[in-house]
């Protein structure tokens, strides 16, 4: 039991810091998630991401368990993952937008839901956990860690924009280009910690 818990924690930390989807792989670098309005919408985005990824981690790990050793795994894996994520997405959109008291929050969720769901960072978490033959606890930990890492990346970008707003960035580099260079230097610094071995 505690063994699986330790696995959960270690995988979560790995997915959060070392293999951060945004910083180490450049996944999820979509301008919609790069430019959040403020801390609140950033938290909302990360929360929706975590909600979707954690709930869809259950059927995904079940699929991994059932498909172990099957020859068609590479063929049927992706559709099943996407189907499970789509299921969670539909349920969430129905629940979140219909049965929520706070209408403003519901509207915001309705806006941010597709952005946070159809996101390469979210999909890559499951493919990576499958390619590394994770167990259930590891898959869950990896999913949760990716969610926290994604939120952390969103906030890093938000504060980087604040910092760059008052420095004399040349006109050509304003906005997205300087942010990408900023992220590039950050992931260069992170690369010094993790080294060459990134699972694909």
């Amino acid at each position, binding site marked *: 039991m505690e063994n699986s818990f330790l696995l959960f924690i270690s995988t979560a930390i790995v997915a959060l810091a070392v293999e951060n989807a945004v910083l180490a792989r*450049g996944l999820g*670098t979509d301008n919609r998630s790069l430019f959040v309005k403020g801390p609140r919408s950033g938290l909302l985005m990360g929360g929706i991401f975590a909600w979707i990824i954690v709930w869809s981690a259950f059927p995904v790990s079940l699929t991994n368990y059932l498909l172990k050793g099957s020859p068609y795994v590479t063929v049927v894996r992706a559709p099943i993952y996407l189907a499970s994520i789509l299921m969670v*997405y539909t349920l969430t959109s129905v629940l979140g937008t219909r049965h929520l008291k706070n209408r403003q929050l519901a509207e915001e969720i309705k806006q941010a839901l*597709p952005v946070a769901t159809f996101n390469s960072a979210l999909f890559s978490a499951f493919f990576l956990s499958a*390619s590394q033959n994770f167990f259930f606890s590891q898959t869950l930990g990896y999913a949760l860690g990716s969610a926290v890492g994604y939120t952390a990346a969103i906030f890093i970008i938000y504060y980087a924009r604040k910092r760059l707003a008052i420095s004399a960035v040349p006109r050509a580099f304003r906005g997205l280009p300087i942010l990408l260079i900023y992220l590039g230097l950050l992931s*260069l610094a992170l690369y010094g910690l993790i080294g060459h071995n990134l699972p694909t």
Partner: protein
Amino acid sequence: MELSKVRRYRKRHKLIAALFSQSPVLIIGLNLPFLIATSVSLRSAAALSLELLVVHMGTMAVALLAARYCPRVVRPVINVATSTLLMMVARLWLTVFFRGVVDALGIYIYLMAVNGMTLTQTNALTKDSHPLPVLRGAFLNVAGFSVLMFVISFFREYLGSGTLWGNPVAVFLRLPGVLVPFFGFIVVGFLLAGAKVLNKKLLGLALRERALREARFSIIENDVVL
């Protein structure tokens, strides 16, 4: 902003604008993950471009029908399901030609099912959007994406691994660090800056804003509050 200049520009540089300086990949940064992480060899660039061609065109075709006949809630589901199926088909097809590349790309082949370009532009479709211009624009976007992929991949493969399309060539100094994703960030950042400079030089902001209107997006610049 002299309109004559704009017109002359449109006559001459339409292709450049569509493929490089105005392609939404550079203007609003769609499909950045592929440009950043996977643009390390020309073969993978070719593979991903072909896959995006299949996925994007097919999904746009289906999304046009969906936008016409389906309620708004179920459209993302239909689009993503379509793109997934097309991605699987494209993957099976690519494994014939680019076997080693498909293995090397790993998850990115799957991730093409949720690439930002397809999601954004299928969301942007409405009930009364005409099929032909939409499909032409989609094809131009895919072409622009593949052009960028090839440019960056040429640069990185030549500098990083000293090969071109797998064949070793003489290079003055090999920089293995170029193959790491962080350099993809930096190269794409400089390319975006180059595209902005080109637009500014050629005719200022007019075409850029037009492209933004087409992509139904607005670049946010320095609008945060401390």
